[in-house]
């Protein structure tokens, strides 16, 4: 039995997985071009995180479960229903941005109808909200789970600790999903974390913890799926750490040359899931070079179209800045 079969996945799932990863990657690459061309002020990337994000997202049930993501989760929210055009509208800060109408920086995802809970910039606050959603669900007798994600640097914030303990005490169905990419801006793991794995912290909250290869979407899917089941069965929260590498600078404002070697990045690119997972699909015979090219072309066309639409779309009116401070 193949590992994808053991995880309960089928050929179509794998192809969907790859398409979603690739869509996110290609959007991300386009955003950098737009930024360098001076068309959008800021980019924050998902590159290197696509496999873990799609793997984790697919373990949830859309329309039922909740996502409380962070700024790198482009691939996760695309899986959860944000369209390429939605993403472009938000990067161009246009009125049609479904997350904020152009009020927030890109990467600050939110959409009530999609089950994606609005997020902010100060890291880790969303992790506490996830416990709140889960508590509400428990009080209302629902069986949804909440997945909240954050970087390894952010796992040091007090809010992570308080939320994890709260969820542990009340056995809430929260999946604490740590996307460990080895850096918090310039700060490497050993100056950020005092433990070997972020998942070493799970025991301190009486919850299941595990660390998995974040470049393997199937492994991530399997681990999160098991966490979802524990959550639905009243067995409480889980801490899942997926390890990969940040393939880009922290953001379009960052200059990484002062704090990491180009070699290190090159080496990590050798494990890039966009390449390795395509290879895996080909080895399985699910995918040919032609399929791959077609998929690229198709996504590219969709991105072109969405970019044009977003560029042409209008901003919210200046005076609209006064709206929605309080209920009207």
């Amino acid at each position, binding site marked *: 039995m193949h590992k994808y079969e053991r995880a309960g996945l089928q050929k179509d799932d794998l192809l969907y997985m790859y398409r979603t990863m690739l869509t996110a990657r290609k959007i991300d690459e386009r955003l950098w071009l737009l930024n360098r061309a001076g068309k959008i002020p800021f980019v924050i990337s998902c590159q290197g995180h696509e496999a873990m994000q799609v793997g984790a997202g697919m373990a949830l049930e859309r329309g039922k479960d909740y996502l409380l993501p962070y700024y790198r989760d482009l691939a996760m929210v695309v899986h959860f229903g944000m369209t390429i055009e939605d993403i472009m509208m938000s990067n161009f800060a246009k009125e049609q941005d479904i997350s*904020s109408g152009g009020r927030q920086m890109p990467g600050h995802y939110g959409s009530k109808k999609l089950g994606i809970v609005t997020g*902010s910039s100060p890291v880790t*606050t969303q992790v506490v909200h996830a416990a709140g959603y889960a*508590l*509400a669900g428990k009080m209302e007798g629902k069986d949804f789970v909440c997945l909240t994600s954050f970087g390894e640097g952010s796992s040091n914030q007090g809010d992570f600790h*308080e939320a994890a303990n709260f969820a542990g005490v009340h056995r809430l169905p929260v999946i604490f999903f740590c996307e460990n990419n080895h850096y918090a801006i310039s700060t490497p793991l050993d100056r950020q974390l005092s433990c070997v794995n972020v998942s070493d912290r799970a025991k301190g909250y009486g919850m299941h913890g595990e660390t998995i290869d974040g470049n393997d979407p199937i492994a991530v899917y399997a681990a999160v799926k098991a966490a979802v089941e524990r959550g639905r069965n009243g067995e409480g929260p889980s801490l899942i750490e997926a390890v990969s590498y940040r393939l880009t600078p922290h953001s379009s404002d960052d200059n990484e040359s002062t704090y990491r070697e180009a070699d290190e990045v090159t080496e990590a690119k050798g494990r890039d899931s966009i390449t390795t997972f395509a290879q895996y699909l080909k080895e399985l015979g699910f995918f040919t070079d032609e399929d791959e090219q077609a998929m690229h072309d198709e996504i590219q066309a969709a991105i072109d179209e969405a970019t044009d639409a977003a560029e042409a779309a209008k901003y919210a009116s200046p005076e609209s800045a006064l709206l929605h401070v309080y209920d009207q």
Partner: protein
Amino acid sequence: MMGTMNFLQAINLALKEEMHRDEKVFILGEDVGRRGGVFLATEGLYEEFGDRVLDTPLTESAIAGVGIGAAMYGMRPVAEMQFADFMLPAVNQIVSEAAKIRYRSNNDFHVPMTIRAPYGGGVHGALYHSQSLEAMFNSIPGLKVVIPSSPYDAKGLLKAAIRDEDPVLFFEHKRAYRLLKGDVPEDDYVIPIGKANVVREGDDVTVITYGLCTHFAQQAATALEKEDISTHVLDLRTVYPMDREAIVEAAKKTGKVLLVTDDNKEGSVLSEVAAIIAEECLFDLDSPVQRLAAPDVPAMPYASPLEKYYLVTKDKVESAIRDLAQF
């Protein structure tokens, strides 16, 4: 139906009525369950509502943040911070999150949450069980800050806060809990948030204040009747955002304005009241605006003589009104 009750009982009654009225209302905080809260504001509610009265771990940021999450989902959490002083670990959740969620999501999400906290001194609470923290939150659009001054108001304003669609910080003066008694209807009424209240009409001096100081102002006004000084008293009720119109009207009424808070002076919420007056009714004043407040020291000391020195009292209010009347 009407009963005489103290401020604390009025709070307790408001909570109970709202929990009956709307099953989305729930309470969370430290020791709010079996213990009924350290001041007993939630006494009896755990017995009546079970798990809708939730003892949390000792983590204020999680109390606020879990409340925010639950509120975004559709519940109406009423969080208790054991003392206002201990809200500070939750400031990031309150200011970055609760206050900004409606705005940042372009009205997609909102946070109908109330955060209750006992504030103020005069009960030997020393530096960290006596503070007035409203001034830290009076420049945060998206928040509302409510401070009731009587049992009647406490009930009506708390019910309004719980039904409000936006986050409300609700500060209760801990000395008021047992000191203030009054008639409180047993039926359902709410007092609008955002509106100040004239608690006494007068012609010589206007006092603008809120919370327990409203009580002192009323006492002082009564005492000064004998001296033929007629005092107009405006209770702000909501200290953020402020009721500009009521402030302007009250200031113009007498042309002599005394502002009173039990917080320290510089940067207190009175500054904004003074600013509104300076913008709107400068030429209607007969004397400079006066502020009566606690001294600008970090917080109230424990030793009785020092605590007393720090506190704003009825006597201090009375002499400040008298001075102004004679100006």
